[in-house]
Structures are given as C-alpha cells and as structure tokens.
C-alpha cells in the first residue's frame, strides 16, 4: 500500500513541478532536478525491485509530460537507480557524505546524457559547464536540506 501511495504521490509531484518550471530555481537559470533527488531517495530507503519499478514509472511519466522520447528518462533513471541501489547499499549506507557524492555523480551522469542528446542545442562552453557541473552541486545542496528536514520532522513527531 505504501509503495502504491508513494508512486501516486510522486506522479502528482511530477505533474506539479512540471507546471512550475522555476521551482527551487535560482533566477530561472539554475534549475535543480528534484526528480533525481526523489529517485535516489527511494533507492536509499526502499528495496531494489521497487526502486527499479519506481524509476521506470517516474521516468515514463517524465517523458510523457516533458515531451522527450518515451523511454529516455525511464532508462536513465533505471541506470541511476541500479548503480545507487548496488553501490549505495554496499559502500555508502552509513556515511552521509558518500550519499551526497552519489547524488552528485548521478546528477552529473544524467546531465551529460541530456547534453549528448541535445548536443546541437548547446550554446557555449560556460553554459555547458554550468549545466553539467554547477547545477548538480545545487541539487546536492537541496538533497542535504531535504535530508535534515526529514530528520527534523522525524524528531519533532517522536518527541510529540
């Protein structure tokens, strides 16, 4: 039931963020990928099979809503979730810093693939640099914030 609820809520979340493009963005330019954060969060906190299925469904809806090729986001999120589940559970489970590193690598990987796909549309080296290497740090920062927000809320509810 919780898996189903999480998937439905995530789909609603995708619909919601796709209607507000500059969500958590800085000046409309530096736009973090909140869906990557969601996918990685699911990979860290749920079992592998569900995380694969979740990545696939979320990616599928992303493709349908964002207008890219059907299957593009699904495959990218699946690969990210595969590596996150495999290596995240093996090496980085305890250390929070390593989790952040994994988020960073995943986001860079996702952006490099996006860049390859949209190679003709890319304009300058600075834009590419910002897109591939700067924005992922902002995504990591957001993941960091969400993590502590989750911790805080957990503490708050436990003490109550």
């Amino acid at each position, binding site marked *: 039931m919780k898996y189903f609820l999480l998937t439905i809520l995530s789909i609603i979340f995708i619909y919601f963020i796709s209607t507000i493009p500059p969500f958590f963005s800085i000046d409309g330019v530096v736009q973090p990928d909140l869906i990557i954060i969601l996918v990685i969060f699911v990979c860290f906190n749920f079992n592998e*099979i569900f995380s694969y*299925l979740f990545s696939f469904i979320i990616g599928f809806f992303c493709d*349908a809503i964002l207008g890219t090729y059907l299957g593009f986001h699904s495959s990218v999120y699946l690969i990210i979730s595969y590596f996150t589940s495999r290596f995240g559970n093996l090496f980085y489970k305890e250390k929070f810093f390593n989790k952040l590193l994994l988020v960073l690598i995943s986001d860079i990987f996702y952006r490099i693939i996006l860049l390859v796909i949209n190679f003709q549309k890319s304009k300058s080296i600075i834009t590419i640099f910002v897109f591939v290497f700067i924005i992922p740090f902002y995504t990591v920062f957001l993941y960091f914030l969400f993590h502590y927000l989750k911790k805080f809320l957990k503490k708050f509810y436990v003490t109550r």
Partner: protein
Amino acid sequence: MNSRKKIFFFSLLFISFLLMILSNRFTFYSFKSVLLYPLKPFNFIVDYIGFTFQDRKIFREEMVTIFQKNLEINRLKFLEYENENLKNLLTIKNRFKEELIFSEVIGQDKLAGEFLTIDKGKVDGVEEGMPVLSLKGIVGKIVSVDKYSSVVETFNNSNFRVGVMDREKEQFMLCYFYRTGFLKVENVKYDSKLKIGDSIFTSGFGKIFPENIPVGKIIKIEVLEDGDFFYVVEPFENIFSIKYVFLIKMDKDFYRNRFERAKKRELTKFGWYTIYKRTFE
C-alpha cells in the same frame, strides 16, 4: 534472488529502449495527450495562485499595449508599402504625354482574374474603352463605368486582343487571350527571329493601348499540325496580386471618333473592326 533483480532491471531497461525506438518511429500523440490531461487542474491551480488580481490587471494592460503597438507597426508597414507604390506610379507620369488617372484596385474576380474593379469612375473622368496599365505593363481596358468605380476587363478575359510588336519594331502581330495567366501571339511571320525569353510590346495600332507598353515575354513556341505556329506569352503583370493601376486619358473626342475612323478604314477582314465593334457597340 540477486539474478531475479537483475532480470527485472534488464527487462525494464529493455522496455525503455524499445519505447525509445518506437517513439522515434511513431509519435504517441493521443497517448501523450491522455497523460497530459491531468496537467489541466495543476495548470489551473498554478495560474490561479500565480496570477493575483493585480498581476492579471497589469498583464491585461500590457497585452493591450502590445496589441496596439503591433497594430501601429502594421499600419506603418502598409503606409510604407503604399508610399513606395505611389512613388513608382509617379515616375510613370513622365513617360506619357497624356493625362493619367491613378487608381487603386478595390475588387477582383479571384477565380479567373477576368475583371478588376477600381476606385475611379465617371466623376474622375473615366470612360469606357480606356486602357488600364500598371507599373509592369498592360492590364486591360475599362468595360463599364459607374459614378465612383469602374470595371476593368483584364488580359485574362477571352475577349482580350491587342496589337503587339517586337523590340525592334520589325514584326507586328496580334495578341489574344490563351488561358488564365497566358496570352498567345498569332500572325507571326515564318521567318520570325523571336525566341523564348524575348519581350513583346504594344504596337499602338489598335488605338486602345498606346505604343511601347510592355505586354509580356515569350515562354513557349507552339507548333500546330499544319506547320503554323504561335508564341505563348506570360504577361509581366500578375492580375491576382495587382494593387495599383493607372488609366490613360485620351482627348475627349478620341473614343467617340475612333469607331467612325475604323469604319472608314474598312478593316473588317483583319479583325480590328471586330475589336472596335465589340468594345463600343
């Protein structure tokens, strides 16, 4: 257990790639539109929250300003175009001794381009049979005159005939309507040196059109079964895109006396008589 996960992962990955390949070949518009349908309430909510009343008011005012500016730009563009055309028409004035009447096309037979309606009529001194020209060349002649407007019978009309000649004034021929947008030149000498691409001009023999008005250029030579041939001519002016024309105002008795003059000449066999008859009777 581990292999089950792997199989599951790779099967999902395979489906993803399959979808990518398929979406490259087919566009799933209907499928995507179904998935995009739930976006509507979100869009509505975002619109409602995002645009406060004040924002909406500013937005509406900005839209009105932009619309007005666009309207102004379009008006200026039209005036510029009109100004250019009128300037060109004025340069024509020096070419003719006769008085010219400048006019704007206000109506058009869009199907075959046989008739044009212009904004000048009896009040402006327009008379039946007046030649109508444009910047590029011949257009037609006036066949009906009202108080404030007139009807022009263009070269796309099957009654159209005009005497033409080559640039060197060596050959005098007759130009008829051939099919919409094309004329044919007959009475061609067998030793004619005219070739495709040569321009032809009015000869002025018909006394409807003045001499040396460009008619069109030869695009084809049609040879008949009996060895006779005629030229197919493409007029310089396109009736369907014409905007301004000018009429040549001859002296008052010119049109009245012309029929009588023609009658005296007894040109019945040649065909000119028929033209006058058709025009003035």
